[in-house]
């Protein structure tokens, strides 16, 4: 008898089909809106049509009088219960229902709870709100202007619209290298507001049972345990009486991390009415009021030596947070991990200044498929790098190569304090250049230029910090960023695994089983994975920031090892030898001196319940909590070639090459799916996705006619390549991968278009790089900014 074949049992490295897809493709998923409870009522939210206005009065009498209406909640009702405002994850406050004034278009003003959603919607329209319009602020320049109206007049000691000023790095040292620089490359950039727009909008069903005092909430959350803790702390309900269930989730992308007023209102309504209350958000509600992403401005400078070495970096970032500072990010750093920029380059001096401002726009800056401002950091980094290479007249690939952290230079401390631990940056770049045919393309580009054709090549190389914590530096409201896994091996050798993470499309039900298979040799199909119910799952911090595999995935490996350690004792007992003489191969313990004499892991499981050694606790179950020693640092190189039509400004992607090093791959098929998904979103951000505002604060991009999502039709083909540098501290050598392509991708597309426009005097076109912006840049020879308010012809 020999070890089981790991690929055959669906272990590590197997491109195992996703088990969850079986129910999704049959329409048998169980989303919040699929759940129907007896006696359930429906809630609808009335939103503000104005971006900034004082509420003079709210008359809900007509709504109350409508048949089927059970309850109308306004700011006044909430204030009477001290619930008009709630704390945000960033230590600010956010209105649940507006009391004094509305601060962005789409803000929640009132809720109606009725027998069906149609009555609730009609009743919302019957509520008369008398608004007194106030001047509107839609960008940081307006926000910081002398005499600008104060948005947060609710806050004591708030005399302007500044949320924070924050800095990191060595200012004096950086100033000194800038004084010594041969060339200083400067660029101004805006990463526009975007929205994750998951296919399923947000929603909840709150079910308070007066008889048992138990509150059960089904909700679209990426982090159910954090919600339970928040409800316990904010609403002062006993934590054992709160059960948060996150059923199937139709995509999160960061949008489902924050706590939204709809959740809070539905919980209060259920407590008041003692009946289940369902709230399901519509698409416009999702786009105009829930967590947006990005919206950050940068002035960036690089100090350069003539030979191409970067001596220092200066970044001055201004973040537009909207009406409330409710970023969903767990670090102690005000601007998230913006200072992870340039981590893949060996730069001795750096300084970053960041300022956050309030505007009359939706709050809730979320990390849309990234780790808290990492997307902006890497976009700015790679746009600055390309501009610097151009300023030096150097080849952009060579410029990157000479500034990379070398393979023998790890662990490497970045000037802003991060510790990178592994990577083969030069090799990844080489694989990418080889795949795209770099030299040949440059020749082709030159030939094409002679005939008036505009070809361009854009490169984006980056390493990013994924998988918060460690718990020393990362917490949410003081709760440390560890994660957990609980594994129960039944006597028949089948198993149940639960983790504190929550899948929203990442495929945990498939890959977690593969990690257990890798550690124990149980076939992956014998392992059921469950997540998202706080009454059953061990406490964990949820899924975002690509932290599932780095943290919860590690916990799965660690709990499997605990199980194996106990099984080894049982094996020694069954084999009647001492534990030291027991050897392990996948799926089986054997006698060192007699390899054909052994017991399988399944036989050990049966013995754990039927024939355990004297003095041993029965059962084969355990739980592990994992606090990673560091973030994981995957590396990626994306290369895009484009052709720009000078007569229309339309640009087409010719080829798109991706080289990803995410360490050891658990399920290569799922990894590739993540990369393709990320690049699709990167392309969308560069090309079409656009949430902006006019001068009155109207949200432009409130529906899928204006906010464009890419389909298979416009998404370019993707060529995937792989380099593997195992993570030195992760139990199975894996690194995060969910976000790399969405983080690193956008700069590659923009760099490609800007490369095609090289020589025209145009240095930057803000995303989305719409054809009319390219056309305008070509006609005027000037940069095109995309900051709101939007021009009237730009829709």
């Amino acid at each position, binding site marked *: 008898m020999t070890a089981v074949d790991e690929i055959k049992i669906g272990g590590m490295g197997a491109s195992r089909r996703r088990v969850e897809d079986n129910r999704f493709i049959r329409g048998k998923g169980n989303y919040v809106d699929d759940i129907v409870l007896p006696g359930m009522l429906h809630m609808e939210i009335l939103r503000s*049509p104005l971006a900034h206005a004082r509420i003079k009065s709210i008359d809900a009498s007509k709504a109350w009088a409508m048949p089927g209406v059970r309850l109308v909640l306004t700011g006044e009702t909430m204030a009477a219960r001290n619930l008009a405002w709630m704390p945000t994850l960033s230590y600010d406050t956010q209105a649940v229902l507006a009391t004094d004034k509305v601060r962005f278009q789409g803000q929640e003003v009132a809720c109606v709870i009725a027998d069906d959603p149609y009555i609730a919607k009609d009743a919302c329209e019957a509520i008369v709100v008398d608004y007194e319009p106030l001047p509107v602020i839609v960008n940081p320049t307006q926000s910081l202007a002398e005499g600008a109206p104060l948005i947060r007049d609710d806050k004591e000691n708030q005399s302007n619209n500044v949320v924070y000023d924050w800095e990191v790095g060595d200012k004096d040292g950086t100033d000194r290298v800038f004084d010594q620089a041969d060339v200083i490359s400067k660029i101004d950039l805006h990463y526009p507001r975007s929205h994750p727009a998951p296919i399923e909008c947000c929603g909840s069903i709150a079910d308070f049972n007066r008889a048992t005092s138990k509150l059960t909430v089904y909700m679209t959350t990426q982090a159910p345990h954090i919600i339970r803790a928040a409800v316990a702390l904010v609403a002062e309900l006993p934590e054992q009486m709160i059960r948060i269930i996150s059923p199937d989730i139709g995509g999160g992308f960061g949008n489902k991390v924050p706590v939204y007023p709809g959740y809070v209102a539905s919980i209060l309504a259920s407590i008041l009415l003692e009946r289940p209350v369902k709230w399901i958000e519509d698409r416009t509600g999702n786009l105009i009021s829930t967590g947006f992403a990005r919206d950050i401005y940068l002035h960036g400078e690089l100090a350069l030596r003539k030979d191409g070495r970067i001596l220092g970096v200066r970044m001055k970032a201004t973040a537009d947070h909207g009406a409330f500072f409710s970023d969903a990010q767990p670090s102690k750093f005000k601007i998230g991990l913006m200072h992870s920029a340039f981590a893949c380059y060996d730069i001795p001096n750096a300084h970053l200044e960041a300022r956050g401002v309030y505007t009359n726009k939706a709050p809730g800056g979320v990390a849309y498929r990234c780790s808290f401002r990492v997307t902006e950091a890497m976009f700015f980094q790679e746009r600055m790098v390309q501009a610097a290479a151009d300023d030096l007249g150097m080849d952009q690939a060579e410029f990157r190569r000479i500034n990379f952290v070398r393979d023998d230079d790890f662990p490497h401390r970045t000037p802003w304090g991060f510790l990178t631990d592994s990577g083969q940056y030069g090799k990844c770049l080489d694989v990418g250049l080889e795949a795209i045919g770099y030299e040949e393309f440059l020749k082709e580009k030159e030939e094409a230029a002679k005939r008036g054709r505009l070809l361009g090549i854009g490169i984006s190389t980056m390493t990013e910090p994924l998988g918060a914590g460690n718990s020393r530096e990362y917490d949410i409201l003081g709760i440390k960023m560890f994660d957990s896994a609980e594994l129960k091996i039944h006597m028949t050798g089948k198993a149940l695994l639960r983790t504190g993470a929550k899948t929203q499309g990442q495929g945990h039900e498939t890959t977690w089983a593969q990690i257990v298979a890798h550690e124990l040799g149980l076939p992956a199909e014998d392992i059921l994975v469950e997540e998202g119910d706080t009454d059953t799952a061990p406490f964990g911090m949820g899924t975002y920031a690509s932290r599932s595999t780095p943290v919860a995935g590690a916990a799965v490996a660690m709990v499997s090892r605990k199980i194996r350690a106990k099984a080894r004792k049982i094996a020694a007992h069954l084999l009647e030898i001492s534990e030291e003489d027991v050897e392990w191969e996948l799926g089986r313990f054997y006698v060192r001196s007699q390899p054909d004499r052994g017991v399988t892991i399944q036989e050990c499981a049966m013995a754990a319940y039927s024939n355990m050694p004297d003095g041993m606790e029965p059962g084969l179950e355990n739980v592990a909590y994992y606090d990673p020693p560091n973030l994981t640092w995957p590396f990626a190189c994306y290369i895009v070639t484009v052709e720009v039509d000078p*007569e*229309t400004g339309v640009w087409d992607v010719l080829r798109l090459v991706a080289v990803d090093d995410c360490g050891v791959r658990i399920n290569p098929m799922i990894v590739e799916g993540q990369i393709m998904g990320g690049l699709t979103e990167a392309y969308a951000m560069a090309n079409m996705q656009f949430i902006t505002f006019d001068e*009155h604060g*109207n*949200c432009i991009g*409130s529906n899928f006619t204006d906010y464009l999502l890419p389909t298979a039709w416009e998404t370019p083909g993707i060529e995937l390549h792989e380099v593997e540098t195992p993570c030195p501290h992760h139990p199975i050598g894996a690194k995060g991968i969910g976000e790399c392509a969405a983080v690193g991708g956008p700069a590659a597309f923009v760099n490609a278009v800007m490369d095609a426009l090289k020589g025209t005097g145009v240095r930057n076109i803000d995303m989305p790089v719409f054809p009319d912006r390219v*056309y*305008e840049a070509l006609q005027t020879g000037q940069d095109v900014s995309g900051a709101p308010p939007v021009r*009237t012809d730009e829709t």
Partner: protein
Amino acid sequence: MLIKHDFEVPVDVDKVWEFCQNIPQVAACLPGASLTDEIAPDQYTGNVGIRLGPVQMQFAGQAAVTERDHANRTIVVDASGADEKGRGQAALGLTARLVPTATGTRVEVEQDLQLSGAAAQYGRGMISDVSAVMMRDFATNMQTRIDAYDRGVSPDQIQTKSAGGFGIAIAAAWIALKRVGRRFFLPYEPNRI
């Protein structure tokens, strides 16, 4: 948002100016609009119904003539209103100037339109195109009414078009298409609507 249009009616400028003094008559020319009450001299309450793609909205509000310049034949009207279902608000500053031409009168209309809520969210790309169609209908209606007025027909007997529906959608789409087409043949102007 500033929207400018002009149109010609083959009617003498003095006659058009005289017609313009009768605000309820002028309002009746605007598709979908109706005045409900005159609350003071030159101050009215009224409704405007409009359909922007999927959204049908009914604005109720007030309009006031804030300036009447007989010498330059210019009239300024300020109007504001809110959708009856709370989905948006609109404020409009309208300036109309009459210019005599060889064949009649050119009416130059400048609209400074501020929208909020659903009208602004859904309709943004269509507003100026829809507005152009409405102005075209407004011109036709105005001509019909001036003719009728001349003949002594009672205004109540005059049928004029209402706003919205398929006609406006088709006409607005055609204008949008033409705008795209123009880009290929005319010199580039970033702010051309």
